[in-house]
């Protein structure tokens, strides 16, 4: 359901946020899924397997035409009629024609996302054909005339009472809301349809070129009945489902069900080759067609930035772990395809207008990338799409303005100095009292900090002499938040570095890392800031570049090589990227900080694991060790779920950001911690601002502040 305007999208989101059943269901699911997924991957090398699938998929996509030719040759030899549809309309026309040619009246379907993608049912029904979905979830939403809200559990948004109501209408008799009984009602109703249908339409998880075979995964077994009972079988599959051999399919099966529903395997996997036995036809053979749908896939294949989305195996895990999906559900998180991949595929399959608002609704927490069965850089592709939409449709004024300002360091810094005075009338202690709504509507869920009276770069000349000697030379990359809003966090860091005898430098020519503009799709500005930062640190010649902002660190590490490409800075950028280290890792792994460095007063301290630190940089151990050494580390629930900041995201979607924040702080308050520590100034801004509004039950600190406070 793609909203036309951002305003109507916001009202759809609010509707979802107010749906208490949906919220409860998805909350429970999110927590259980993560635990179950961890357990089901326990005895496997998950990373290696995902890397193998990614490589295998890339190889298959690289020789797609060859695989297609081989599949056709094999399948046709075995009596299969193979079609290739360039567009959704072509595919629908082909399938309607097959139905006509075979005198079909009634069609049963097992689940196919590709059929949803092309809106096949609409076309078949327009031809006067009766179409019945047989996957339980799909049947329920078909009865309700809705689209799926999850790729694997299409009716996850509905309660048993709503299902009972639909079943009562469908059977014209009252139905109990007991789930076991409802499932039996579906079994009986659908069995009757199975026995009278003329044609079965299924999807395919695999199309195996070597044998011209297809593979279908289902749990319910409706796939087996759909492909067995009717006299005609039509497979609808994206052309990206082609793979060389059964080995590729077996490899994907090791991850697909584990990722989808935390099962070792789906209950049924059916491998169908050639025209199989059917007692309904004269020659006892089934009429069997395979329709490959292109619908933009071969163009996508040539797309160097986004082509890897064709690796997707449709497990739905990107939705399962998405903190935004968890709050708003699938109807607000995709058009047909759901979750991170849904935002992307909406853009490519269903038009840029349908995607333009949806693709803004990614908080960039990287949780999806972390679990993707095929290792797709989903958040990276979403950023790319934002950049393209800005090119195509023009950027919103706010983002162009930010782009212009951030790309010009001295202008940016001048504006910040000006902002410092401009904020005086709205300032209340360390927080902005209220913002004029033109700058930020609906930001009441948190207090926003003011710009510091003296930035870190202004304080540096006084600090520099204290840390001018040492065997390890460390360069500080401040990032905007700490330079201008939280300079005390960097001062605290300098205090610790000084105690550990490090030499510290602060190259003055550094600027914003560029992440905020990249998030808004302002690619040119992002390139400019990247180049100036690489140059600034090249001249400083340091051993390590420490940044106390996990978001800056991950953006620079991941995107600078690409952003500075073509500037003749390859080796300088590589050196820059290799030297970047987060503060906790620097202390533990370079400066050997340990218990002996702290006065541990047993302060109960909880940890918020910043998205960009734990997932992008993979740092999870060091911060927790430090907290245990300087205080009493208390585990709180879902430490690695996003706090809702997401940079400019929290300005664009305050209603979602506020909910994520409330959930996070609730958990920390209940853990009994007095202090909440995190490694990212963006998270500090969000969490501290939230606590300010909630009455300061927990003190929020950056790691550097907490450690400096407890330093011997």
């Amino acid at each position: 359901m793609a909203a036309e305007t951002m305003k109507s999208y916001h009202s759809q989101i609010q509707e979802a946020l107010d749906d208490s059943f949906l919220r409860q269901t998805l909350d429970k699911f999110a927590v259980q899924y993560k635990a179950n997924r961890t357990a089901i991957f326990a005895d496997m090398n998950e990373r290696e397997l995902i890397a193998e699938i990614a490589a295998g998929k890339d190889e298959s996509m690289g020789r797609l035409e060859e695989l297609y030719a081989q599949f056709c040759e094999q399948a046709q030899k075995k009596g299969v009629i193979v079609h290739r549809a360039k567009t959704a309309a072509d595919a629908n026309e082909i399938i309607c024609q097959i139905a006509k040619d075979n005198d079909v009246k009634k069609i049963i379907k097992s689940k196919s996302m590709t059929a949803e993608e092309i809106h096949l049912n609409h076309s078949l029904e327009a031809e006067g054909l009766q179409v019945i979905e047989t996957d339980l979830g799909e049947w329920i939403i078909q009865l309700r005339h809705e689209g799926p809200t999850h790729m694997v559990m299409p009716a996850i948004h509905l309660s048993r009472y709503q299902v009972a109501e639909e079943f009562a209408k469908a059977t014209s008799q009252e139905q109990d809301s007991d789930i076991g009984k409802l499932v039996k009602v579906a079994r009986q109703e659908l069995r009757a349809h199975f026995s009278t249908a003329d044609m079965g339409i299924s999807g395919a998880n695999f199309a195996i070129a070597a044998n011209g075979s297809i593979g279908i995964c289902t749990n319910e077994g409706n796939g087996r009945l759909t492909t067995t009972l009717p006299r005609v079988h039509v497979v609808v599959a994206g052309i990206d489902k082609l793979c060389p051999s059964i080995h590729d399919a077996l490899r994907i099966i090791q991850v697909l069900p584990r990722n989808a529903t935390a099962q070792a395997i789906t209950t049924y996997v059916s491998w169908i080759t050639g025209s199989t036995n059917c007692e309904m036809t004269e020659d006892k053979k089934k009429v069997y067609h395979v329709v490959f749908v292109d619908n933009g896939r071969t163009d996508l294949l040539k797309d160097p930035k986004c082509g890897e989305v064709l690796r997707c195996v449709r497990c739905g895990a990107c939705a399962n772990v998405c903190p935004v999906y968890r709050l708003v559900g699938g109807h607000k998180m995709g058009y047909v395809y759901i979750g991170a991949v849904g935002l992307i595929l909406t853009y490519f399959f269903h038009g840029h207008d349908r995607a333009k608002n949806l693709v803004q609704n990614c908080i960039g927490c990287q949780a999806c990338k972390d679990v993707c069965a095929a290792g797709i850089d989903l958040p990276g592709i979403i950023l790319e799409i934002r950049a393209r939409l800005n090119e195509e449709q023009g950027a919103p004024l706010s983002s162009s303005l930010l782009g212009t300002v951030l790309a010009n360091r001295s202008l940016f810094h001048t504006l910040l100095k000006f902002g410092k005075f401009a904020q005086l009338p709205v300032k209340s202690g360390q927080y902005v009292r209220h913002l004029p709504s033109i700058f930020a509507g609906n930001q009441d869920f948190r207090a926003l900090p003011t710009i510091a009276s003296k930035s870190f770069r202004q304080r540096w000349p006084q600090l520099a002499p204290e840390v001018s000697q040492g065997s390890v030379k460390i360069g500080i990359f401040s990032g905007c938040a700490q330079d201008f809003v939280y300079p005390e966090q960097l001062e605290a860091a300098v205090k610790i570095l000084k105690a550990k005898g490090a030499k510290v430098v602060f190259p003055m020519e550094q600027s914003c890392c560029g992440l905020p503009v990249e998030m808004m799709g302002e690619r040119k500005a992002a390139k400019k800031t990247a180049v100036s930062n690489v140059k600034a640190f090249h001249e400083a010649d340091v051993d390590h570049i420490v940044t106390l902002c996990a978001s800056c660190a991950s953006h620079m590490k991941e995107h600078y090589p690409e952003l500075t490409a073509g500037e003749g800075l390859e080796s300088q950028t590589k050196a820059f990227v290799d030297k970047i280290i987060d503060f906790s890792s620097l202390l533990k792994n370079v400066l050997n900080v340990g218990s002996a460095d702290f006065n541990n007063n047993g302060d109960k301290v909880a940890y918020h694991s910043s998205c960009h630190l734990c997932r992008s940089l993979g740092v999870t151990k060091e911060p927790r060790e430090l907290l245990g050494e300087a205080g009493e580390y208390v585990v709180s629930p879902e430490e690695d779920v996003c706090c809702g900041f997401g940079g400019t995201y929290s300005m664009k979607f305050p209603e979602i950001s506020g909910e994520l924040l409330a959930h996070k702080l609730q958990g920390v308050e209940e853990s009994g911690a007095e202090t909440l520590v995190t490694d990212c100034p963006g998270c500090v801004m969000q969490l501290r601002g939230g606590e300010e509004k909630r009455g300061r039950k927990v003190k929020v600190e950056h790691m550097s502040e907490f450690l400096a406070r407890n330093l011997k």
Partner: protein
Amino acid sequence: MPGNLDPATLDLFLAKAKAATIEVVAVENIHNAVDYAIEATKRAEFGKLLPTGGPPKPATGERRKTLAAPALSQELYDELAKKGEAENFEMIRSGLREYLAGVDVSLTIASMGIAETATLIIENEREDDRLATMICETSLIVLPKSKLFKTSYETEAFLNEALGREHNYTSFISGPSRTADIERVLTLGVHGPLAMHVILLEE
């Protein structure tokens, strides 16, 4: 080839089968498996998968329990049928389409097993063979221990041969039919069997 199976593989299979709500029994030989099928049919309560919970009222006479085994060899089927008829079961070897309302029990033999996912590999190119394992309330599948492997990759040569044929329908079955589509509550028997038993053969 009894004795060739690594005990760890068997343990893995048993653990994964339990997780997948598969009941596993071990018997000496195929005749014991036939006896097990007869006993399982005797125990079967018909109509568990009907919405009303109870058996439908037969139009005339007593309803007999049904046991389908279309995929067995003639010799084995005859042995089963003899014992089944002695118990007054309706024995089914073909024409499964006539029984789409449901049969009580089906018995079939797996080609291979995969321990790490508790998967039985069944070749069921014939429509009757496929339907028998789908429309029964309890599915009994025999697996000779010598055909049990740890990983799916070890069955690849077999699968390649099967998929290489002119026409073939091969199924991986790893438990009873299941759904969690209503409120994510796991519910068995949505389209296929409510229960699945694996009969492990020593011989």
